[in-house]
């Protein structure tokens, strides 16, 4: 597999640096993050070190369209152990935000996002639940708070 240098997008690099997090610039590819990651154990193709390197080089499309940036469990073990102070989970969050902007969003997330915008909550109240809550004497929960639409707009 040959990597095409034409793929490097410097605008993406500038955005990553200025709007999100600069710490990834210090990465010297030691591999402590990958070796600490609980996710790599069960999904060998998820490699935080490689993702940081690709982001560092500016391979925007390759990185943002990757399904792997969504697998970080945010456990923060890598950040604790990184000798250069790279905040890998922050980088993952930044890449996710940028991916969403570009329209790369995993299907479950798309659903969730819609839910959030429509009802202000991720777990909508249906009639069954509302009834059960009432039975227990629990306070009613507003189904579709109006403000969310205003805020989302």
């Amino acid at each position, binding site marked *: 597999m040959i990597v095409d240098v034409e793929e490097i997008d410097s605008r993406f690099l500038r955005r990553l640096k200025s709007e999100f997090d600069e710490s990834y610039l*210090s990465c*010297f*590819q*030691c*591999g*402590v993050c*990958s*070796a*600490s990651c609980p996710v*790599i*154990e069960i999904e*060998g193709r998820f*490699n935080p*070190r490689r993702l940081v390197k690709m982001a560092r080089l500016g391979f925007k499309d390759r990185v943002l369209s990757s399904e792997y940036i969504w697998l970080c469990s945010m456990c923060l073990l890598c950040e604790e*152990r*990184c*000798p*250069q*102070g790279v905040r890998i989970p922050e980088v993952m969050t930044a890449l996710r935000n940028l991916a969403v902007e570009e329209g790369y969003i995993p299907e479950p997330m798309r659903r969730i996002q819609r839910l959030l915008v429509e009802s202000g909550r991720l777990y909508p109240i249906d009639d069954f639940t509302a009834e059960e809550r009432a039975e227990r004497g629990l306070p009613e929960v507003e189904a579709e708070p109006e403000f969310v639409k205003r805020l989302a707009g």
Partner: protein
Amino acid sequence: MSGKPKIGVWVCECGGNIGDYVDVQRVVEAIRPEVAYARRERYLCSKPSIENIKRTVQRLGLERVVLACCTPKMHRETFASNLEEVGLNRALLEMVNIREQCSWVHKDDPEGATQKALDLIRGGIERARVSKPLEAKRAKSIPEVLIIGGGVAGITASLRLAEYGLRVHLVEKRPSIGGHMIQYPKVFPTLDCSQCILTPKMASVSNNPNIDLITYAEVVEVSGVPGEFHVKVRLKPRGVNPDKCIGCGTCSRVCPVEVPSEYNMGLGPRKAAYIPFPQAVPSVYTIDFEACTRCGKCVEACPRDAINLDDEERIIELDVGAIILATGFELYDANDLPRYGYGRYPQVVTSLEMERILDVNGPTGGQLINPKTGKEFKRVAYILCAGSRDTENGKPYCSRVCCLYALKQAQLLLDRGVEVWIHYIDIRTPGRRYEEFYLETQRKGALFVKGKVVELIPEGDRIIVRGEDMMLNRIVENPVDLVVICPPVIVTDETHKLAEMLRIPVDEDGFILERHPKLDPVATKRDGVFACGMVLGPKDIQTTTAEAEAAAMKAVNFLSAERLIEPNKAYLIDPELCDGCGECVEACPEAAISIVDGKAVINEVLCSGCGACIPACPKGALDQQGLTEEQLKAQIRGILERSEADVKILAFVEREVVYTAVDLAGLARLEYPSSIRIIPLPSMSRLKLEHILYAFAYGADGVMLLEAPEHEGPYGKAHVISEERADDYRWELEDHGVDSFRLWYSRVYVPDWRKLKKVFTTFHDMIADEGPLDDETRAQLREELD
């Protein structure tokens, strides 16, 4: 013709460099009536011109000389030494810069340039009028050197200095010299027997009549000045008389107490009565009084009656001219690297411990057994960068020697059939024959894994080393019998205390700060104190040896020249004026002033001539040689009083760093307004409010203070104080009727010389817009000041 003293003025045209812009003829004619002699020259620095000046000085009996030409940084020395030949004291020579700081920067304004040149020369003349001759004092240094630290650095330096013929005092904290190098069985890349190449040098040290070897001792106090240091050394109680001890070892054999051996990194025992290793120098036994039970068996057994259990520490005093710091390193405490399990898992050892295990004279007799478990090891993993190159947990720097010594140890192990894994981030081989050594290690079969080790996991008798293998793109879990971690080298705690005692700064990692990282690597920030070896930063033995030789040479140089004490010192005008308030003591950045019998006393050797104390004295009792109040005011007045320029700005400029920047602007022919007239000073902290008011009183519309960056240049520390003072002065100006914006203060860095154009132009425009200071205020100020 003017009266005494007789002043001669020469104005150079410098080919056309000055002459094309400044009307030199007009200037000469304007000042001729004010002095004894005035002349225009085409090239002042040419041999015939200089001869001319000398002859004229003799012929007319001139007592002061003013030379208006290029920057004094070019030719001052030449002119001064030439004039000394005809009996003119160099303090009576005034140099005026009308090229870099005039003709070259006012090409578009020849009229302004001419007026400015005239003003500056007048300033020089008035200053010369009140100048007095000054003699530089000379002092001899004590021709003895103290070397602290008896490792390979200290040993090398002491042998070199002793060979040269200087007396050397080598102080070592341990009972024997040899440092860490004596602990290694082999060194890289030659795989020479380390002990074999060092012990002859150690023996030379002990035999050399010029070397006073003081072991088992520590430096506890250093006072005095460079060239004349007074040192106190604490001799720890050895319990054994070195003159009587024959090194038979009987005491050690009968001693019942066993403690961990420092030489063997605690992996094996030694007795309380011991010699650290057989080739120790001096070859004298020591009683470790912290472990000794005072049973007395050694005293009985000693055939020479050399042991005294009541031995006590003593303080000796030494007087030396120079000091070399060579206190070496220790390893970063592996206990502070919890993820690598040192101390928890006995299968983990440090690299220094491994050196001892490999040594045939070590705790295992050279057998491949881990002394902590007693078990043989067949499979070893090295963890490089364990706590180095780590900004979060450990030291941020690269420890430089670990890659090489790991490769060395690997080769020694591989030769004996051990399987060796090296887990690394990078392999750094920055020396001669090092890359080849790396290749050789690979050829011998070492296994390399690129990926920093994250943690160690015990499993039965073995330890699993976990890290990523980036080349295979897999996480590796490597079960081994023994793990060797390579922590970074750091300076010893004693070094920090010594640095404080010697008043030398250390850098952010604790290493001694060299005077200049590129051009002066073995000198410290203090004259007469030098350093070499690991104490300056991680390095291999070759580089340490080179530095030790260099430091020895620097010490020789320092001690052989007579020290010149420049006549630029602060002094007390009249003891009657001083009431011992101590304000000057506080202001002095060099701690050169003290109050003795209620009067200020200035140590001429410590005084750097920055002038910071002078404005601090509430009685005005202090003045400065070569920059007296009289001279300063005369120069200010001379430049301003008769100037016909529309706008006059007096810029006080720090005379080393900032002056250079201004010259550079001139060299680049940057154009800026001719209102700027420059007076150089050692530091802006020399200025009193009075001087600034004086400038306004006699014609300045604006005053600039251009200070050097903090701590740079010879008067470094003084530059810090001036900013605060300038702020105070600004407030006080308003009280005297002068708008505070007319006083400018900023710092100039040499690389920023291009900004000077903007700085000068901005201030000029501001002053020009506001208009000149009104005459009333000036008159009022003059009244106040007279």
